[in-house]
């Protein structure tokens, strides 16, 4: 019963949401609106709470053990200070909250993201090798794309731009479409398996 009941609830709710999403009937619309506007937000709020509590717990335990103490303290100060700043001075332009966001969070995240360029540089030198015919074609296509997305592409003949566009609209798009169709079919199959009770891993391990 402990496994059958959640499965039943999941299947029935899943089926209901499936029907109301595609139906234009006023009752279906009303259910759809209530579920998306209220229920999902409540679920999100609880998920957020779990995340915050878990983040605080793990970091407090780490501080106790003396692991990366400084970083963990900074993380916790950040977690507490942002809502406090927002609650006291608001979130409008010129508020301390926005100042911290613009001058601490944005530069830090942009810096971390910019590190990708250095990984690409390193990989270009040490990893991107034309070890086979397909690898050579892939490298060539990548170089054409890189040139076409820079000023140099404009200095070359129109045929070069056409060729870059052809790569984007044919081989690249075909591959992307295949991936998207694969993802779609995979999602559909998994959803159906969950609704029909064939997929039960989300319930956790069965106790013997």
């Amino acid at each position, binding site marked *: 019963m402990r496994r059958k009941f959640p499965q039943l609830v999941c299947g029935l709710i899943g089926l209901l949401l499936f029907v109301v*999403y595609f139906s234009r009937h006023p009752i279906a*619309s009303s259910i*759809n*609106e209530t*579920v*998306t*506007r209220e229920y*999902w*937000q409540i*679920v*999100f*709020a609880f998920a*957020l709470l779990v995340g915050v509590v878990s983040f605080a717990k793990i970091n407090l335990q780490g501080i106790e053990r003396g692991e990366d103490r400084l970083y963990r303290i900074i993380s916790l100060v950040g977690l507490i200070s942002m809502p406090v700043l927002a609650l006291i001075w608001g*979130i*409008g*332009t010129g508020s301390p*909250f*926005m100042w911290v*966001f*613009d001058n601490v*969070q*944005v530069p830090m*995240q*942009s810096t*971390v*993201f*910019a590190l990708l*360029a*250095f990984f*690409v*540089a*390193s990989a*270009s*030198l*040490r*990893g*991107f*090798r*034309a070890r086979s015919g397909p690898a050579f074609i892939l*490298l060539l296509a*990548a*170089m054409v794309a*890189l*040139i076409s*997305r*820079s*000023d*140099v592409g*404009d200095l070359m003949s129109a045929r070069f*731009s056409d060729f870059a566009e052809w790569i*984007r*609209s044919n081989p*690249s*798009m075909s591959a*992307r*479409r295949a991936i*998207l169709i694969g993802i779609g079919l995979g999602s559909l199959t998994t959803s159906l398996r969950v609704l029909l009770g064939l997929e039960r891993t989300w319930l956790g391990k069965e106790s013997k």
Partner: protein
Amino acid sequence: MKIESRHLAFIGLAVVVVIAMLVGGRPDLTPSADSVRMHEYIASLAPGSVVMVSFDHEASSLPEIGPLAKAFLRHAFSRGVKLVGVSLLAEGTGIGYRLMEETGREYDCEYGKDFVFLGFKPQWVAAIVAMGESISKTYPEDYLGNTYQDIPMLAGVVNYSDVAGVVSIADGSLTTHWMEYGHARYGITVSAFVAAAMVTTYDPYLASGQMHAMVGGLRGAAEYESLIGVGGSGGRAMLAQTVAHLYVIVLIILGNVVYFRSRHTGRK
């Protein structure tokens, strides 16, 4: 510390990018068909029509997304299009509000009359579907705490049928949800300004017509800036992107020359 080849590659990249940023310069780019299509779409909107702009990105991609967003906002404000800002990611909220306010000020646009920012709503699918039923019930208040009914610009804006289109400014796959739920379920026109890395992801949607128009990456921002005739950070950063791309190409060639030479020597 022993200096390895990767360290030299890092230093080289930093040097060429810094020099390019210091030298500056604005390239004379030929706008692509994608940029022209987006420009024509925004230009075709009647002054006073309401467009929803969704800031679906994080703070990390701001150097690339910022110029794209500003180019779009400048064009929309200059055309008298009224903008309703939302965000499907918490981090896009602060950025979206600031970008709209700063750009609105350039065109003497008034908050509440010419543009409004509704803020962040968690769970993107739920937010998109809920707004399709009722925007005021999804966002009873705007980002600054004003009641929806008290905002003059939003009088008569009930759901997507009162909005000319949605423009998603994204660095990830969130625009997909706008197409899968906003377009497929409610028929709203979806366009996007996206990070360069996401262009190929959205190409099939653009080709199928599920996405109306798309502008991608710093080059897209630079092209759009030249189309609207306003200089921005997209054009300024293009030289740095160009030298970085050329630098990567040189490294690829160098790496392969070393690889084939070592293979040849190994055979001997």
